[in-house]
């Protein structure tokens, strides 16, 4: 079959925050860039972020990047790489101020500066008290940010391929990345995007779980494509369960609600977080709050007829403040919980929210894999940023507002690295193999001809229920072992999905089948990596690795202070060291310690 080829200096897959930020760097440097996105850019899931973006601007309370770095390393339960974390925290002010210059409508303090609010796990003076670090546009920060970034790209004349779904990564025999194949959704036609540099910014895969704050589009496309092309996935056992999803609906209620003074209560009306985190209370980090909530529910102190959720109470805040700072939350509560939070508390439950792991990168945005004894050898021509990537700044648990920061810092950094590599002549257009599009065409041909196959909906549901039951907030050895078997069975079923829709035009059944292939890679990586990690760390907490004197928080630093690398071929696991050394001599390594809030 004849496949159209398009040639660019760079191709970016994904047009959420990270993709758009990277695109700006490339467009403004004059590189011929194609941005592929399966939805119109402003529909990307960055749009749903609410509470803010972290930067130690110190507009209201004293702050500095050292404190931010400490909080992030501690939040990561020491699994984050300290060079990347230093890089991110030092860059935060620069990228947030840039965004303001692009036109982002941040809320303002009385003296006209960017408004900042407290957020979970962010503290002043190394854990002493909450700090106001989250730069916010009401509770619509992601929306304001995504639109500002898109608008800046309109100004920069960035070339978008809207409603094109990337299908497979193209590599040559040396393992260099040469671009991607992609399908135009309106026509069903597959093209090759041949480029000197390929940047993945495809977001997370929260849809592997049954109950998720994530959008339908969050199917881990880049992560799946990378895995199928032989790139290992890093630390995929670490998934963030956000404490406050609307019970039943899964829709996100920002931590900013607690930043503005909201309180979590059990069925007795007790502010139970005082027992679990005496210092930061409701603003402890997310893994801690989610576990505390599940413990309350498991011990019979949940709310409602089924005692299956807790309450998020802001009825003590002034209606004016709620209308000004949390208007979107009020809309969501009315729409999805049927209550007005000015008058009654919101029923909430921990809900899958964020993928800490992903495609391994360094802080320059280069994808790195083990090669010739170097655990972090860059893959020529391949870069990644945002939730699909693992730099790793979030380690075992991400702090709220560090995700929007991640996509700005590393979107920009990946873009800068590509521009540098391009200008120094390090990037070449390498010849395409004859077989460049074969894998993608075979996937489509299989879907065309599959008979007596499995329903995409049923397989996806089986995957989501398996993940929810076997790899949830608390993890158990027997459930994980059984989960590995179950997910491998589901993966087998996914090989014979069948769709009834055979149209070439906007065939969403086909899109969903292709997305399922990506979700399955992520689900396998998660379950297998989780089963293997025999300790508790951050969001990965096993009942057989409890908090003891020798092993604070159940962490086993002796054996498990290392990054997981999962390869899809043979479901092989490897490990690589955590970088405990900061980027510069300006800061001492943050020493391992017990995590308390």
């Amino acid at each position, binding site marked *: 079959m004849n496949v159209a080829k398009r040639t660019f200096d760079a191709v970016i897959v994904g047009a959420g925050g990270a993709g758009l930020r990277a695109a700006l760097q490339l467009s403004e440097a004059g590189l011929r860039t194609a941005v592929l996105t399966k*939805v119109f850019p402003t529909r990307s899931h960055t749009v749903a972020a609410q509470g803010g973006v972290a930067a130690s601007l110190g507009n209201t309370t004293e702050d500095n990047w050292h404190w931010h770095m400490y909080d992030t390393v501690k939040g990561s339960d020491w699994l984050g790489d300290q060079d990347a974390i230093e890089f991110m925290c030092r860059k935060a002010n620069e990228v947030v101020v840039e965004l303001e210059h692009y036109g982002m409508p941040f809320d303002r303090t009385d003296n006209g500066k960017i408004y900042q609010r407290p957020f979970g796990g962010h503290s002043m003076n190394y854990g002493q008290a909450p700090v106001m670090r989250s730069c916010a546009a009401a509770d619509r920060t992601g929306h304001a940010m995504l639109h500002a970034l898109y608008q800046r790209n309109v100004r920069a004349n960035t070339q978008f391929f809207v409603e094109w779904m990337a299908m497979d990564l193209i590599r040559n025999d040396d393992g260099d990345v040469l671009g991607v194949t992609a399908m135009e959704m309106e026509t069903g036609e597959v093209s090759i995007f041949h480029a000197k540099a390929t940047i993945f910014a495809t977001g997370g895969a929260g849809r592997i779980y049954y109950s998720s704050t994530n959008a339908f589009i969050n199917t881990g496309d880049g992560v799946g494509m990378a895995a199928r092309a032989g790139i290992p996935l890093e630390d995929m056992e670490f998934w963030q369960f956000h404490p406050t999803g609307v019970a039943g609906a899964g829709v996100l209620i920002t931590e900013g609600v607690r930043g503005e003074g909201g309180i979590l209560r059990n069925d007795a009306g007790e502010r139970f977080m005082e027992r679990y985190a005496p210092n930061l209370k409701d603003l402890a980090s997310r893994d801690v709050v989610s576990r505390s909530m599940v413990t309350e529910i498991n011990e019979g102190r949940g709310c409602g007829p089924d005692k299956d959720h807790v309450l998020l109470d802001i009825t003590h805040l002034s209606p004016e403040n709620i209308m000004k700072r949390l208007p979107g939350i009020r809309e969501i509560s009315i729409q999805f919980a049927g209550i007005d939070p000015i008058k009654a508390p919101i029923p909430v439950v921990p809900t899958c929210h964020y993928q800490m792991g992903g495609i391994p990168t360094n802080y320059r945005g280069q994808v790195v894999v083990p090669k010739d004894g170097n655990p972090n050898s860059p893959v020529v021509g391949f870069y990644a940023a945002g939730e699909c990537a693992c730099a790793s700044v979030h380690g075992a648990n991400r702090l709220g507002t560090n995700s929007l920061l991640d996509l700005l810092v590393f979107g920009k950094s990946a873009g800068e690295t590509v521009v540098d590599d391009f200008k120094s002549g390090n990037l070449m257009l390498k010849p395409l193999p004859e077989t460049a599009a074969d894998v993608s065409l075979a996937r489509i041909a299989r879907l065309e001809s599959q008979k007596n196959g499995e329903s995409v909906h049923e397989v996806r549901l089986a995957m989501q229920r398996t993940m929810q039951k076997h790899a949830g907030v608390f993890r158990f050895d027997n459930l994980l072992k059984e989960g590995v078997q179950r997910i491998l069975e589901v993966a087998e079923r996914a090989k014979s999905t069948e769709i009834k829709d055979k149209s070439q035009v906007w065939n969403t*059944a086909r899109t969903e089948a292709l997305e399922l292939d990506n979700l399955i890679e992520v689900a396998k990586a998660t379950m297998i990596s989780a089963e293997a990690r025999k300790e508790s760390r951050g969001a990965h907490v096993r009942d057989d690795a409890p908090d003891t004197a020798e092993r604070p928080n159940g962490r086993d630093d002796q054996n498990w202070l290392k990054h997981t690398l999962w390869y899809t071929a043979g479901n092989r696991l490897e490990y690589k060291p955590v970088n405990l050394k900061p980027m510069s001599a300006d800061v001492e390594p943050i020493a391992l310690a017990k995590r308390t809030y």
Partner: protein
Amino acid sequence: MSKRTVQFKIYRYDPDKDQQPYMQDISVELEASDKKLLDALVRLKVVDDTLSFRRSCREGVCGSDAMNINGKNGLACLTDVDSLAQPIALRPLPGLPVIRDLIVDMTQFFKQYHSIKPYLINDEPAPERERLQTPEDREELNGLYECILCACCSTSCPSFWWNPDKFVGPAGLLAAYRFIADTRDQATSARLDNLEDPYRLFRCHTIMNCVDVCPKGLNPTRAIGKIKDLMVRRAI
């Protein structure tokens, strides 16, 4: 709500096989947890995977699932399915070319949005830190910046139906005023020049369908009125 069956009449058209569009009668059994119209559409797609529509965030911020619901534009994810008279009539957004089923070609809509230069223009050298803006000046942007580009407004506007190539439409004009109203933007005069035309701005006849349908509760007509005021003021 418990399990119940809901009746639909849905606009169907697949250019690969249909000579012309038709209305399909179809019903689906909903689970107790299915509350929104989008939940019902997702349920319907399990029964018939050829039904095509856009959707993403399912919470009213991405703007993907705008459609014409019982004659009125809205977002499927923010519409309570039980509030709708049955059979629930679903059609693609009016006035734009239909690609397939409930999916329209939004090229013209975005062309108009892009035509107003939807980005901050300030050619002064950027300061080290943020540009300052008082909370009062920032409040001027409320009701403007929240637009999700779903196109419910522009595709409910008769003036946009008649002149989609010449009239900017409510969404684009709301965005135009969002930048005019921003104290950091320096291009007000050029922005007004860009709209000084019998069609681009002045085809708005304050029919106010846009206000009636906006799923975010925004008021494009008021923003358009403010632009018209500025036009008049600079003329005298």
